[in-house]
């Protein structure tokens, strides 16, 4: 499964970040249900890796000394 590429748009309501989800954005790849599930899992793992890389980078930047004398 992949999600239709759209610009990220959120609305802040009473401190909550509310993001629209349209069921039409879900694009299931594969001809059988089993194939769709397999592809969806693969895509999810890819997306999880992306998240990890992003946070790793962020934490690395945070721990790097920012100069000073």
């Amino acid at each position: 499964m992949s999600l239709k590429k759209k610009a990220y748009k959120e609305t802040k309501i009473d401190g909550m970040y509310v993001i629209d989800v349209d069921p039409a954005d879900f694009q299931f790849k594969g001809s059988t249900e089993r194939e769709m599930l397999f592809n969806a899992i693969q895509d999810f793992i890819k997306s999880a890796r992306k998240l990890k890389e992003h946070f790793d980078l962020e934490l690395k930047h945070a721990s790097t000394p920012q100069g000073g004398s």
Partner: protein
Amino acid sequence: MEKISLIYVLPLLSLVIILIRLPEIDRWLRNHYSNAPFLITLILGGSTILTHVITVVAPLKKYERQENNKWTIIDNLIATYLDHEIFRGSPLVANIMIPRRVFYCTWEPAIGSSVFRRISARFFVRRLDVVWLSPGNMMNKQFRITARQGITGKAYTIGRTIIRDIPGSIDQLNFTEQQRATISGNGFVASTPIFAFDRKYSRSTQKIVGIVTFSSSIPGSEKIIESEKNREILKENITEFSGICSLIL
């Protein structure tokens, strides 16, 4: 029902006729072979049991296995997800909740000016029952919510993804004092609806069949969602996960 009648009624009826030994039928059978009633009873009885095993017991076992497998898939998946230590030092907890309408429920705080309103609000409540929790995690059994409570309830009601920090929202979640006492009050929650999957057209429908929640209760983890980029990636992840759930639920 008609199929069941054909499978069971005909052999059983024949068995009864043979077993009650109607004189004419018994004589006719024994004329062919002296042990014919016994043999026919054995064949009919055996074939009925065999038919029952093939048509009822075996598929049921198969579905039971599939039913168990779906949680194994999710367990393995989330284990992979957590093994990557996405939030270092802030382990994520994932859960899946499904809505269930109940006749009477007292989990919500009593709100309303009149006694009638307070009592009527307790009837026909939509409860959110936890059907799956990520492996290695525990949920306080006292923490139970309805569709009108918490970030999860809000996400279910409005059918959108919601990301919210807990320290800043604890007073707005419509929790009772008892419910508040069961949560840490730290971290953040991200919830998104699970849409029903239409098997006929292989696509998601507008119907919401459950809610996925990712949360972290480690103090300070709420800072993670302060960045828009982090929220975007978190939203993408949780939405992908809800897509998998819609195929499984």
